[in-house]
């Protein structure tokens, strides 16, 4: 029982990280109608920045995290301006290829700056755990902080999207870009802000992820990036609650797969889920088919 609970918590914790990354994917997809495959690499850059601030410049953890968020935000906005904006009218295939190119560019850039040797990220969260059930269930602070941070982010983002003017404008652009323009919404600005939010979230995900899985190398972001993309599709791409649900479920599936089926098949299971979802319900768990009334 306690092993089950412990696995469940690790799953939810890992899934929370996937969910935060998936939010970036799904928001950008919803609003700019593109898959930003460089998103995973923005996470990697965020982790390196935080690492550099904390271990090379000896800054306190919270400052490292804040600087990582600022750098990622700037990076995300710059990528959008330089690489994607000129392609606003281009076919989606061109944009996709550009995003993949950007992904390789960021990985190589990181290799140039920080080298190819893995670095050991020390957790920004103090080591230790609390014991429950007479000591048979231990929950690490990392797990607790990860889950709490994700819940806060999800609540804040949901409020932002549903109740602020900019959030509503984003929903409009996501549903019908042309109609949103006719309301007077500045679509370019909306897209920029979406990239900024997604990238800031990527930095948070980076720090949480590296606190739990401390190996940092230039390809650190790609696997979580692809899994978070899977999570976004699983939940229904374009849907914010979908990304949250998809992320958490995927984390749980991965950890349970590793614990009860085979530790080597965890990743394969994740992608099996993607294939099954695409076969059975291509719109994802919470994705909506848009019906048009004539």
């Amino acid at each position: 029982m306690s092993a089950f609970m412990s696995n469940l918590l690790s799953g939810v914790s890992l899934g929370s990280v996937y969910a935060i990354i998936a939010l970036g994917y799904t928001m950008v997809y919803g609003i700019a109608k593109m898959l930003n495959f460089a998103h995973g690499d923005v996470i990697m850059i965020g982790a390196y920045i935080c690492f550099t601030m904390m271990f090379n410049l000896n800054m306190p953890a919270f400052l490292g995290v804040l600087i990582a968020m600022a750098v990622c935000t700037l990076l995300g906005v710059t990528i959008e301006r330089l690489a994607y904006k000129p392609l606003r009218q281009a076919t989606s295939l061109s944009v996709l290829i550009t995003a993949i190119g950007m992904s390789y560019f960021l990985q190589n850039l990181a290799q140039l700056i920080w080298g190819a040797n893995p670095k050991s990220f020390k957790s920004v969260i103090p080591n230790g755990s609390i014991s429950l059930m007479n000591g048979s269930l231990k929950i690490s602070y990392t797990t607790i902080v990860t889950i709490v941070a994700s819940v806060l982010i999800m609540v804040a983002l949901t409020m932002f999207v549903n109740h602020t003017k900019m959030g509503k404008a984003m929903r409009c652009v996501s549903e019908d870009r042309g109609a949103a323009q006719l309301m007077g919404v500045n679509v370019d600005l909306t897209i920029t802000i979406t990239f900024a939010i997604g990238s800031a979230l990527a930095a948070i995900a980076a720090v949480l992820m590296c606190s739990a899985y401390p190996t940092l190398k230039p390809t650190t972001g790609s696997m979580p990036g692809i899994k978070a993309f899977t999570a976004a599709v699983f939940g229904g791409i374009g849907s914010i609650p979908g990304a949250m649900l998809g992320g958490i479920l995927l984390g749980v599936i991965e950890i349970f797969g590793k614990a009860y089926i085979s530790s080597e098949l965890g990743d394969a299971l994740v992608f099996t889920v993607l294939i099954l979802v695409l076969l059975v319900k291509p719109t994802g768990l919470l994705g909506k088919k848009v019906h048009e009334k004539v």
Partner: protein
Amino acid sequence: MAKPMLKVDNINVFYGAIHAIKGISFEVYEGEIVTLIGANGAGKSTTLNTVGGLMKPKTGTIEFEEKNIATMPASKVVPLGIALCPEGRRIFQQMTVKENLEMGGYTRPADEIQATMDDMFKRFPRLKEREKQIAGTLSGGEQQMLAIARALMSHPKLLMLDEPSMGLAPILVDQIFDIIVELRKAGTTILLVEQNARKALEIADRAYVLETGKITLSGTGSELASSDEVRKAYLGG
């Protein structure tokens, strides 16, 4: 005569390599109902989209209250007092009726939105009943009312309506045309694009006929309604 509110001068608009609008010019004066009629693909919607800032003309000028708006994006055009109620309504299906109206007032100060919305509810009581409903669940007629109300939320001086009667039952079509006439009475200038040429000419002060991207005829609504050419081509003989 007074200066026109909207003066479109010799604009050329392209979709990629396709020359959709070939040097058209027309004017709309304050307080008028002006209609553009023509067959499918004649360029009526493109003209409205260009004035509304969704497309840019390659050459030519568009002046609104003597200000050149030809290269302005929609987000700059709307605050000047031009609203476009687009073809196919394009309300935000997944948002509530209220949220749709709020979006219509996107460029207006936050403190006046509620009052404008109350005006809309007075004019369209049906929308008040459906205030909290998801807009995609409304009937076609209600969706068209919502689309018009949403456009009015920005307090336009010039309201452009693109095929407002499309796909509606005849009784609703009459209702929509009554609304247009009422709006003009209340001081809004109207630029109307319609397939239903007969009804459009009935309420229009002036009209232009568009054929494959060019204006081929213009005149008062009744002049065009009685012209042989228009009757043959657009009014069924």
